[in-house]
Every structure is written in C-alpha cells, then in structure tokens.
C-alpha cells in the first residue's frame, strides 16, 4: 500500500446489521474503503458495475447463500478474492467454501485481529501476484510449447488446447516460474498461495501440481517441467529436463 495509491476497496456482504457495522468500522479504521451489501443479490449487482480488492462474504445469507454468490462470481470470470465468514466451521464446510472459489474461510465468532490479519494476507498475496504479472515480460510465461497468460488466467497448451486456469493454479505456476530451476518446498507454496492453516495438509499442493502436469506436460507420468524433489517439494524447469 503506497501513499499515492487509493486505499483497497472491500465489499462486506453480511445480513446481520451489527456484525456488518462492526466489520466495516474496523476495516475503515485500518484504512480500507468499504461498501456494504445485505444480501447476495445486491452484492452481485454491485460487483457487476464496480471492482474491489476483496469480498468479505457471509455464507448464511437470505436468498442465495454465500457459496452460490461466490460460484456465480467465478462463473462470470470475476477473480476478486473472497474471504468467507460462517457460523459453521467444520472441515467439510471449509472445503466447500474453498471449492466454491473462496480464498480463505473464517468461522464465527472470530477474533478481530485474526480477521484483519487474514484480510491483509489475502490482499498481500494478490498484490504480489498482480505486480509480478504487471509487465508484458512477466504477464506471459512460455515453456515447452505452452503459453500462459497470467493476467487473463488463460493458457494455450503445447497441443493447441485452450486452458482456463483457476486463481490457485495460476498463483502456483507464478511462484514456480519466479524460482525456475530452484527447489520450492510444499510449505513455501502453501504460504505463498493460500496463506496459513487454510488447508489441513500439504497434499493439496501435490494435487494442484498433478493438475498442472496434466495441462502442460506432453507425458504427465514422466514430467519434464514440473519435477518432484522427493521429500522436499518441486522444481520448475522452463526449458524442460534434458
């Protein structure tokens, strides 16, 4: 956040007026610009005409619930990060939230400092991703006949197939490409792409690497670009393994 930039804009979608007021006052006190929407429909209407840096989204909303709102948003191609707030906090619910396209998940009642920390962490991750894809040299990655457009979340694979990347896939690819040739640990990937303690295990990273191999490797069983370093993590090679 530099002084010359406008403050990040946060949309708070929460039907309980007290909770909404509390969240908004605190976000404002931290220097964010804040807009409120009491239900999913109004949130989607607002998002259709405005951009923002983050959506704080309650799961239990009157009408369409938060998960449906997030799915609609993603289906429209809107990649604004989403932080879910919910009264249910069991792992299955967390997974549902993240599958719907959410970036993070916080169970009610939550701690104010943790909430603010997570908001900062999500914004920092996206700040990094955007600035790391800002120039025409960094916006596009070419390797082994594949071409990835980080800003559009699109790619064309070596066989000419068009690919739509999820935000997480794009972020993982970005981290790996920034450290091409170096070993990146699973923990580093989790920290850079998800933040802390969102997912229960580093196995999630492995699943995403499998998906990237399927998309971009000529022979996913014998990868030449996304290499496993046993017991440590992964190494990305732009030129392909000789």
């Amino acid at each position, binding site marked *: 956040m530099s002084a010359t930039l406008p403050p990040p804009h946060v949309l708070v979608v929460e*039907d*309980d*007026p*007290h*909770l*909404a*007021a*509390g*969240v908004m*006052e*605190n976000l404002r*006190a931290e220097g964010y610009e804040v807009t409120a929407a*009491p*239900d999913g429909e109004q949130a989607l209407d607002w998002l259709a005409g405005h951009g923002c840096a983050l959506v704080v989204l309650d799961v*239990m909303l*009157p*009408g369409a619930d938060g998960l449906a709102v997030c799915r609609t948003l993603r289906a429209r191609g809107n990649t604004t990060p989403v932080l879910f707030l919910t*009264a*249910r906090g069991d792992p299955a619910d967390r997974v549902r939230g993240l599958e719907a396209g959410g970036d993070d998940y916080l169970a*009610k*009642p*939550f*701690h*104010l*400092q943790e909430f603010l920390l997570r908001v900062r962490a999500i914004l920092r991750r996206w700040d990094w991703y955007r600035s790391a894809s800002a120039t025409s040299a960094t916006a596009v990655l070419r390797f082994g006949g594949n071409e990835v457009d980080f800003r559009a979340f699109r790619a064309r694979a070596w066989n000419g197939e068009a690919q739509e990347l999820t935000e997480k896939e794009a972020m993982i690819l970005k981290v790996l490409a920034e450290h091409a040739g170096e070993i990146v640990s699973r923990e580093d990937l989790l920290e850079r792409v998800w933040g802390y303690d969102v997912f229960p295990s580093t196995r999630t990273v492995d699943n995403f690497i499998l998906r990237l191999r399927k998309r971009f490797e000529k022979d996913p069983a014998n990868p030449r670009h996304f290499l496993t370093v046993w017991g440590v993590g992964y190494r990305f090679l732009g030129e392909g393994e000789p």
Partner: protein
Amino acid sequence: MKATRVFQLTALALVVVSAVQVGWWLFDQHAYTVEKVSAARAAYAEQVAAAQALLDSGAAPARVQQLLPGIVVSGGHASLAPQLAEALTTEEHRRYRQYAWEGSFFMLALAACIAVIARALREEAHVREQQDSFLALVSHQFKTPLASLQLSLETLALRAPGPEAARPLIDRMLADVARMEQMVTQILESARLERGRVDLKSEPLQLAAAVARVTAQLEERARRERITLSSDIAPTLTVVSDPLALDVVVRNVLENALAAVKSAGGGRITLSARASEREVELLVSDSGVGFAPAESARLFQKFSRLRGGASGYYGTGLGLYIVRRLMELAGGRVSAQSDGLGKGASVRLTWPAVAVSAAAMPQPAAGEESRP
C-alpha cells in the same frame, strides 16, 4: 437412553425368535397329526383285512366281531365301524382347528409386540434426529449475536475509543445480549410447548383488552420507528384462551409486523377483528416488506427467518412458531398472507367461537373495571 435402546432391541430380537418358534411349533404339530392320522388309518385297514381273512377262513361273524370290536360284518364283508372312522376324522379336524386358532392368536400377539417395539424405536430415532437438528440450528442462531458481541468487545480492546465513540459499540453489545436473552426465553418456551408441558387455562377473554394491553407496550417503539399502530376491535368479541398465551400470541405477531414495517422504512399496522357464528378472527395487516407467497407455510416453522430489508431483522425464528403452537393448543389456527416482497403482509388468527353461556361471558364494561 442407551440402556432403553439395548432393552428394546433385545426385546425385539426375543419376539422375533418367539415368532419363528411358534411357526416351527405349528409346522411340527401339523406334521405329527398327519403322521398319527395316517398311522391310525393304516392300523384300521390292517384290522379290516384281518377280519376279512378270518371270515374267509370260515370264522363266525359274531366271533370276528367279538375279537375285533371295531369291525362290523355285513353280508360276509368286514368293514370299519362308521363311528370309528367318523371319530378319527373329527379328531383330525379338531386338531387342525386348534392349531389354526392358537397359531393365529400367538402370531397376532407377537406381530403386535414387534409393531409396538419397532414404532418405539422409530420414534426414538426421529426424536434424536430432531434434537440434533434443533441443536445445530440453535447453536447457529447464537453464533451471530455472539460474533457481533465478540467483535464489539475486541474493537473496544484494540482501539480504546473515547466515551463518545464507544457509545454505539456499547449500545450494540447491549442489543446483542438482549437478543440472546430473548432467544433463550423463546427456546425454553418452544421446548415446553413442544413437549406439551404447559398448563394452559381456558377462560373467556376480551380480545380488545388483550390487544390494547400489548399495543400499549409497543406504542413507544412503533413511534420511534415511524410506524402507525391502529386497532378497531369491538369490545364484545370474546375468545377462549389462556390469558398469558393470548398476550404472547398477539405480542409475537405484532413484533413480527413491527420488524417487517421497520425494514420497509416505516408504515402502518392495523388490527381488526370480526366474529362469525363459529369463529372469532383477528387480522393483523402491515405495510412492511412482505414475503413471497410460496413462503407462507414456512413462516410458522421453527427457525424460519425471512429476508429482511437493509435495516436487517433480529428475529430468533421462533416467535411465529410459538404463535402457531399456542393457537393449536387453544383449538384455533393461524395463517399468513402476502402478495409478494415489498407488498405488505397480513396474519390471521382464528379462535373457535365461545359456546354461548351467559354466565361465562364477561360483561364488557364489568370485565374492564374488574381488571387491575
């Protein structure tokens, strides 16, 4: 709970084993009778053959009949005495009838036992299921005011605002605590209604007086929220109900209407009543946010909350459920109607008309005066 379940399942297993045992016993008895009857028939046939052989060898018929008393001889032919053949058939049929009666009696008794136990088990499973979902819903309902309360407290701790800035936070916290207290009261109330553990009186009451009592308590709030409350109820209208229950019913319906009108940014609520020969009806109409017509049945279910407007609604989702239960216990009913979102709504409370008994009817004027 667990011991009862083990006992029920053991009893069920025992009854099922008994039913199988009775079935086997019937089968066995039937087979035994068939065997015995055919053995008796074979023995009789042997006697007839022996008598015929004696006759054929020249024995005197009288001598043959003396030796074999079950045989009759006529015209040189030996045959079984008809009363013996008849007695055998009668005995055979008597036994089959006995098995049929006894078998069906025991089978019916056992089937009844199985049905009773199975029903108890099913009901218990249903109760457990309901308790689970009730607990899940209750804890969910509490988490929102709790989260709000925690947020306000942590804001106070983190930002240490001056008294001026802290005031709205404190007001919010007080409202959250009041919200939770109201929830506890309503949850206890609905749990008592659920189990039917309520001691409701049945006395004739003036509808107008109850409505006046409740509206007097809510008038100040209505004025603050720019809501006009008006009622036009004939003082002669009487319903049979519990006095406290009548107040709770009217209050909950009115609070619901107030919340709906507040969400619409103000408006009016009108109460009117009419009586027919069989029913007395109270109609509470509001110009509030209304609801989708398809949702009218869901309104009276536990924890159903309809969408509020921008100003939100703090309902516990139990108020109208309690109204429905209390109306049912008073022998009446309740229904809600709306033309759609933003088009207002009306709630109709209907009690059976009082059986006209001059002694039971309070005199309108006297009723008013005798009230403290």
